[in-house]
């Protein structure tokens, strides 16, 4: 029977799990800060403030082209 414990995937998983488990307190705090930043970026900033792009403002490429040319040739 194949020894599951020694499979490459298992070894990789063990590396990560063991690593995270044995991180010192300050490293865990840093990870919390990283998670907070990612939540802030993707959970607040992007959906609320950075959600208006040409892709969702206009339905067709034709409309997007007209918009860009209009701004690009304005004085």
């Amino acid at each position, binding site marked *: 029977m194949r020894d599951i414990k020694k499979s490459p995937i298992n070894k990789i998983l063990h*590396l*990560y799990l*063991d*690593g995270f488990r044995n991180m010192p307190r*300050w*490293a865990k*705090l*840093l*990870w919390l*800060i*990283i998670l*907070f*930043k*990612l939540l*802030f*970026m*993707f959970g607040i*900033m*992007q959906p609320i*403030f*950075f*959600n*208006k*792009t*040409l*892709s969702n*403002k206009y339905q067709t*490429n034709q409309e*997007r*082209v*007209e*918009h*860009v*040319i209009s*701004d*690009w*040739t*304005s*004085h």
Partner: protein
Amino acid sequence: MFNNLDLTLVNWSRLQFAVTAMYHWLFVPLTLGLSFIIAFMETLYYRTGDKKWKIITKYWMRIFGINFAIGVATGLILEFQFGTNWSNYSWFVGDIFGAPLAIEGIMAFFMESTFIAVMFFGWNKVSKGFHLTSTWLTAIGSNLSAVWILVANAWMQNPIGMNFNPDMARNEMTNFWDIFLSQTAVDKFMHTTMSSYVLASIFVIGVSSWYLIKKREQLLARRSIMIGSIFGLIATIFTIQTGDSSARDVYKVQPMKFAVMEGHFSGSAASPLIIMGFMGETKTAFIDPAIHVTPKSPVKYSIEVPGLLSLMTTYKLNSYIPGINDYLFGNKAHGIISTEEKIRRGYEAQQKLLAYKKAISTNSPAADSLSTYFKNKAWLANTFKYFGYGSYYHTDNTILKANITKVVPPIAMVFYSFHIMVALGLWFLLLFLVMLYLVFKNKFEHQKFWLYASLWSIPLAYIASEIGWIVNEVGRQPWTIQDLMTCEQSVTNLDSSSVITTCLLFGIIFTVLLVAEVTIILKQISKGTKEGGN
């Protein structure tokens, strides 16, 4: 400058991008440089078997990890801004940006993330050789990630290797290698990475000097100063060389930026190089060279070296180097087109595009003949090339002539940033030479001045690194894409309050987080190796 700050959408959008980019750039150089320093140290551990090298390597790896973690997510907001605040620009650049940024993301995710995990978690779990390989691949991966965004930025400064598609109003890459290997891209990548290595070396030497001042971690400090000084010295030499090469490229592709950063208002043969000076009132310095032969330079108390600007720029002592006024008013004798002429040509290009779009929408037979302009190399090189200038056109000649100064970037900011950056680079060269001498002679006992100088050079390295980007990005104003698209044309027509809100929100939250994160890094530095570094 701040008294005249115009609180418009464009300027708030500019400010937001500048602040978020500079925030991101606080962390990237140390990641790029320290990753290699750690790789060198671990290689020495691997080759010698000396466990003290392992302790030193793990210490700097800890600092690297903290800096890396602090930097995570700081680049994301820049990506958000491309799509939302600068949507016209994002559309216009087409696949020139899309492909490099996609590769950057993929590379960063797979290469760095994978091997960073082995680097931190793999001690005593994987073989020494595999661990060392992972450390090197982390260093190489993070540096290669930087290639792509720098190539994209280089294209903004020198747009080549593409065709403009008038139907889609965007650029299409025609030659990847023209873009990837342009002189601008090569100089930019080399100069940015080399200067990052300088910063990392200064950081290592500065922290090590602090330990020596405190008479702690003496072995770690001396060995780190040795590695940092050697690496830093080589990196500084290459930073100077690539900076010099980059300036010559800027002279060719962004001549106004070059004239501004050198404080060169009036063109002349055997042009002098300004080592330093004080920039006075510049508005009155814009004088048509055809009217006055030698107007007074607004640079006061300047220290100049006669002929050196000509020599460094063209390798010919007596060559004519045009100044700001030549580019504004033109100089027929030296084949320089005036800004007014560029504005007229840019306007003509804009009218052709508008006429073409109208002909398409009305199914006019004129569409075919108009479309040939966008395939005509001569027209593209002599008229379309100045498309962005067309936005300064006005039917009233007086207003048009007054508009020419809008293509001049903020002179004082660019001039001072450039000169301070160069001065700091030369200081770092001296510092590395001295510290290398002291570490090999083991002569730190009575060298408090140099130890404190190293420590206080850490903030100077960050200043030099940031103001380099000010030269690059403020120097290219008003352009987002040189000569083709201005900032005003690039920006999305959002509500200013939205931009102001995100600017303040980002500023407050990330500053609070920065304080927390820097506290963590300072605490770890003060703890030292814990296992003893003497």
